[in-house]
C-alpha cells in the first residue's frame, strides 16, 4: 500500500509541476497579441488512482484594442485566418501583419496570409479590410481574406508565433461568421488574477504531495526498520 501511495504522490508531483509550467507560459504571454491560454486539468481514468493531465486550448475571445494601424487585423468570433508556411497551412488569429519587399501580405514572421484566391499582393495605396475580410486597395476590391476553422478546434496544436496547426489529414472548413476588424488587435484571453491564484494553489498542492510522500516513506521505514526487527 505505501509503495502505491508513493507512486501516486509522484504522479501528483509530476502533474503539478506540468501545471506550473503551463501557468507560467500563460502568464509570460500576458501581453501577446491574439494569445489563447492553455488549461491543464487532471482527469481520473478508469482503473487508475492518480490524475492524468488533460490539456485543452481555451479559444475564448480576447478583448479588441484599437491601434489605428491599417495592417493590424483582429478577429471577432470563432475561426482563424489562414497562413501558408513552408511546412503547410496554419491558422492564426491575425495580429500585426506586414508586407515583404514585393508587397506580399504576410504575418509577423513573413509567411503569406492567404486570400480566397491565394496570396495577397498589395500595390501602393490605401488598404481597407472589411468585416467579411474583403481587401480593398484605394477602394477597389482585390481579394478576400480566407477565414477558416476545423471541425474540432480543441485538437489544434500550437507551434508558436500565434500559429495553430490543424491535425494531419483534417480539412479546413469555412468560417463565414468570423468578423475581421482592421486597425485593431486582439488582446490575450488570459486572466492575470486567476493565474496568480492558480500559482498559489499549485504551489500548495505540490507541497501537500511532498508531505504525503514523506509520510508514506515514514510508514515504509517503520515497516522495514521496526516491524521486521527480531528480538
Amino acid at each position, binding site marked *: 500500500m505505501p509503495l502505491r501511495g508513493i507512486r501516486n504522490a509522484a504522479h501528483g508531483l509530476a502533474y*503539478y*509541476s*506540468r501545471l*506550473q*509550467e*503551463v*501557468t*507560467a507560459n500563460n*502568464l*509570460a*504571454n*500576458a*501581453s*501577446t*497579441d491574439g*494569445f489563447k491560454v492553455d488549461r491543464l486539468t487532471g482527469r481520473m*481514468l*478508469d482503473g487508475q488512482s492518480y490524475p*492524468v*493531465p*488533460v*490539456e*485543452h*486550448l481555451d479559444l475564448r475571445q480576447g478583448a479588441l484594442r484599437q*491601434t*489605428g*494601424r491599417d495592417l493590424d487585423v483582429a478577429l471577432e468570433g470563432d475561426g482563424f485566418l489562414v497562413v501558408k508556411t513552408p511546412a503547410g497551412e496554419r491558422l492564426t488569429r491575425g*495580429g*500585426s501583419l*506586414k*508586407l*515583404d*519587399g514585393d*508587397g506580399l501580405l504576410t504575418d*509577423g*514572421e513573413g509567411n503569406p496570409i492567404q486570400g480566397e484566391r491565394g496570396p495577397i499582393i*498589395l*500595390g*501602393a*495605396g*490605401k*488598404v481597407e479590410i472589411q468585416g467579411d475580410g474583403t481587401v480593398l486597395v*484605394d477602394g477597389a476590391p482585390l481579394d478576400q481574406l480566407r477565414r477558416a476553422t476545423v471541425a474540432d478546434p*480543441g*485538437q489544434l*496544436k*500550437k*507551434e*508558436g*508565433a*500565434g500559429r495553430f496547426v490543424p491535425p494531419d489529414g483534417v480539412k479546413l472548413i469555412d468560417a463565414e461568421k468570423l468578423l475581421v476588424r482592421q486597425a485593431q488587435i486582439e488582446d490575450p484571453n488570459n486572466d*492575470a488574477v486567476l*493565474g*496568480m491564484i492558480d500559482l*498559489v494553489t*499549485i*504551489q500548495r498542492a*505540490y*507541497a501537500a504531495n*511532498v508531505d504525503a510522500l514523506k509520510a508514506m516513506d515514514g510508514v515504509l521505514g517503520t515497516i522495514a526498520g521496526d516491524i521486521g526487527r527480531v528480538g
Partner: protein
Amino acid sequence: MNPGLRTSASGMKAQQLMVDTIANNLANVNTTGFKRSRVSFEDVLYETLEGARTVNPQDSQTLAPIQIGKGVRLAAIARLHTQGAPEQTGRTLDVAIEGDGFFQVQKPDDTIAYTRDGSLSVSDTGALVTHGGYRVLPNVTLPPDVQDVTISPSGIVSATGAGGTPVELGRIELARFVNPSGMMSLGENLFGETAASGRPLTGYPQEQGFGRLLQGMLESSNVEIVQEMTDMIAAQRAYEINAKAIRAGEEMMQATNDLIR
C-alpha cells in the same frame, strides 16, 4: 531544474521591453509629428509531451495533445502612424498634414527621407527647408524680397513680393506608403523607405487620398499620456506576476530537494 523558470524569465524580459517602449513614447509626448510605438509579442515554440491520444478504445475517448509553451518573445515594435492633433502656432512656415502623407526631403547624400514635421524655414538660397536644414521636395524657392507666404491646403505655395501681387512659386508634393510602420526611423523626425514599407506613392495634397496642408499649425505627437500610463501599470503588474511565478517554481524545487534526507 524547473523549465517554468525560463518561461517566466522571458515574460519578465518582455514586460521590461514594454516599459522601455512606453518610456520612449512618454519622453516624446511633445515632439512634433512623433508617432508612438507599440510592441507586439509572440509565443515561442511548444514542446509536445504527448500528442492527441485515445485512452479508452471502447468509447473512443480522445485526449487533446499536451503541449507546454516556452514563453514569449518580441515580434515587432511598430510605429503607429495615426493622426496627431494639429496645433495652432501662427507661424507662417509651420505646416501640418491632416490625413495621409509625408513631406519629402532631400538628405545631403541625395537620398530622400520622409517626415510629418512641417516646421519649415527658408535657407540662405531661398529654398524651403525643414528645421534640420534639409530641402523640401520638389524645390520651392522664395524670392529675396518676399513679404508674405501662403501655403494652400492643396499644397500651392505663393508669395507676395514688393509689388503686392501674389505669385505662385510651386506646389508641395507628399508621399505615402502602404505600410508606413515598416519605415525606418532616421532621427530628427525623419523616416526612410524600406522593403517593408513598400514603394513611395507621390501626389499632391487633397488628391488621390492624400491629406491636406494646414498652414500656421504643427502636428503634435500622437502619444496619449493616459493610455501610456495605463499600459505602464499593466506592464508593471505583469512583470510582478512573472516574478511571482519564478518564486513559486523555485519553492517547488526547494520542496523536492527537501525530500532527500
